[in-house]
């Protein structure tokens, strides 16, 4: 009896999975079809790999952002954290400490910046929007301290290999996206920490009454967001062979767009990593496709905004009709 119930439950899950992502998946397919009509090279393996590589920085930052939005909060500082992380890496390598310490300190700096965001939000009861607008500015200012605003070259071969080399024929950068996607997905959907995050985002007061340590969840989630942004910072600096003071500028908006395109609700409590990955792919396909067609940058901005509105509208509407 339990087994049939299990199978029935799984079937319900599968059906709800299809429904959940139908809208966003359709948007992605439509985009791909349009671009491959315009340029047959769009759907080539080489270009698809290219898209994945280009979108990696945004996708990883968006995984972190998804956690924050699930809590009903927002993190606008991740673009700045991306830049700080790159600069920390470049400086530590410059000191000659080697690759591994540089990597660890870089990720640690991201976690610390996230923790600061989380602590200010949870302990001082400030809205995360305000806190992270402020830290966005502070962190962006910090980037320039070591070099007075000049970029810092990175020559470490291991560091640059991350963005340039392949493993088993697949670029390392794509492996990283894949591994982090799986890790975030499992943490969110299979652990009680993930469940507590969902519940807190869904109804903070009820979570509190049920004994969930809401403040701790908030701080950990902002730390995850900061750490993911630091990984993005590593990838970006490795691809650019340098740490730039304006790296990752306005990436927070792309990360938010990816999460929201993927069905994450800004009200909190609703969203998945799969959705966010699909959302990031849409943004990647859009950027790549328009570049291929040599669409001028300012038109790209306009089109991107419009696509976001249309895709989210389709998604919301298809969900409403089912409700």
């Amino acid at each position, binding site marked *: 009896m*339990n087994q049939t*119930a*299990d199978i*029935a*439950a799984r079937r*319900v*899950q599968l059906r*709800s999975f299809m429904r959940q992502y139908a809208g966003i998946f359709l948007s992605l397919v439509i985009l791909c079809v349009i671009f491959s009509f315009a340029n047959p090279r769009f759907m080539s393996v080489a270009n698809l790999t290219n898209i994945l590589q280009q979108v990696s920085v945004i996708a990883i930052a968006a995984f972190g952002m998804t956690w924050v939005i699930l809590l009903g909060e927002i993190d606008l500082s991740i673009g700045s954290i991306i830049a700080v992380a790159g600069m920390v890496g470049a400086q530590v390598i410059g000191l000659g400490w080697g690759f591994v310490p540089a990597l660890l300190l870089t990720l640690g700096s991201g976690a610390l910046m996230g923790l600061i965001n989380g602590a200010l939000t949870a302990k001082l009861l400030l809205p995360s929007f305000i806190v992270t607008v402020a830290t966005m500015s502070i962190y962006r200012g910090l980037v320039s301290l070591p070099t007075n605003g000049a970029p810092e070259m990175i020559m470490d071969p291991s560091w640059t290999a991350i963005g340039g080399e392949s493993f088993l024929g697949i670029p390392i950068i794509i492996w990283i996206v894949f591994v982090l996607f799986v890790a975030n997905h499992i943490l969110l959907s*299979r*652990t*009680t*920490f*993930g*469940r*507590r995050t*969902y*519940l807190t985002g*869904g*109804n903070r*007061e*009820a*979570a*509190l*009454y*049920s*004994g*969930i*340590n809401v403040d701790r969840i908030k701080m950990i989630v902002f730390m995850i967001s900061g750490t993911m942004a630091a990984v993005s910072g590593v990838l970006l600096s490795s691809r650019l062979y340098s740490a730039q003071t304006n790296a990752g500028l306005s990436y927070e908006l792309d990360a938010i767009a990816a999460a929201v395109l993927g069905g994450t*609700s800004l009200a909190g*409590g*609703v969203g998945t990593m799969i959705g966010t990955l699909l959302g990031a792919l849409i943004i990647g396909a859009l950027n790549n496709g328009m570049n291929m067609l040599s669409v001028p940058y300012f038109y790209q901005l306009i089109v991107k905004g419009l696509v976001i509105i249309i895709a989210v509208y389709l998604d919301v509407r298809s969900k409403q009709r*089912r*409700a």
Partner: protein
Amino acid sequence: MAQNDSDIVLTLSGVCKSFGPVQALKSMDLTVRSGRVHTLLGENGAGKSTLMKILSGIYPATGGSIELAGKPYAPQTPLEAAENGLAIVFQELSLCNNLTVAENILAMREPSRAGFISDRKLFQTAEALVRDLGLPIDVRARVIDLSMAQRQLVEIAKGLSHDARIVILDEPTSSLTGAESEILFQIIGRLTREGKAVIYISHRMEEIMRLSDDITVMRDGEYVTTVERGDATVEQLIALMVGRQMNEIYPPRESEAPGEAVAPVLVAEGLSRPGEFEDVSFTVRPGEILGFFGLVGSGRSEVMNALFGMTAAEGRVVLDGKAVTISSPAEAIGHGMAFLTENRGEQGLVRSHSLRANVTMAALQDFTTRGGFLKSRKETTEAQQAIERLAIRANSIETRAGTLSGGNQQKVVVAKWLATNPRVLILDEPTRGVDVGAKFEIYRIIRRLAAQGTAIVMVSSEMPEILGMSDRVVIMSEGRVGATKESAGLTPERVMAYATGQHK
């Protein structure tokens, strides 16, 4: 019966409604006459609220026909329903917590000039309305500072703030005590004298038998029958509603009340919180059911909130003989306490999440592997057991809690706290909005837990529930303990006397 058809204001026939695969209404008929109170009676999830939401333009019916004063009626929006003379007081509160009472009552109808709201006029209008209805509420208070009962009164004022020929009241008394209910009954009396039709929904049989002119019974989204009051007894109505005979309202005791010799698990001494309660002391023994009675504003829920670590209070709390300080619900739960709050919508349920996630949310550590993973299979079993044990009407354990009917949401919150296996279980209005059958089940579970040694503190505004279930009763009056009495031999009159402070 002297009915002709000229006083028919609303006719429904074969109305149905489905939400995806869920068929909430299969075929519903109803004939509502002006100047009469028409009660809808049905189990939790029978489709009562759904029907009322169709009438008030929240969502459209999927089939059937509705006639309002002889004309076809299919409102697309709540505004259209209001323009057609329908007023509704919803089951779940729909107030903006950060606004004042006046702003809520007159939402969408604020007195304004050129788009600017005139505060003076706003308060005047609201004040006049509230006074006219005879409701004891301060229109300048912010909703967040009000108790559940007061919020319910605001909701009633909001629903009745515009002229209507049909007034719908969906479980308006579920969080009211007797005194406030009386005010509502007087309002209903006046409405019917003015020739208005009232559609009334409640699970409290005494008030149904007292108020109704006509009673329509529905079961599983289908029309069963309509009777005039007096043509059926309570027992007959319940049998029609649940489809079987029910003889008892309270299950028999499974154990004797623990004697004086048994050491209490929980001792509260001199709890005080300025403005809310003062010098509150009580004890509960393992296996005891301690009732808490009091009028609205007597501070019962506030005491429980403090005890559970949500708010700070002075005084001493002793658990198992050891003095403890509890500064958060997490700590309280760690000490083996559980607290079912009265406000299930805001403090109990995560509406956007599945029944399964809600049922286990207060006991998640029991569903966590050492590596931090969720014990999914164990959770499935727990949720399925909750559905069976409390007869929760839900499509599956994956159903979103927010789509359940009010009474079934209440059952989910009950299940959530049962899953924590507490030593001290605090229940604040545990059977709010629950139908008679499910009430019996909840009472039986409470009795069984007591027999197994759980100490139970039960706050309730329902006098019969307090007297029928408790071993001892703490009666609060204006933030203080008016009396603590053995419930044997206690009469409703004496309890009321203590609660109103007339008895010293």
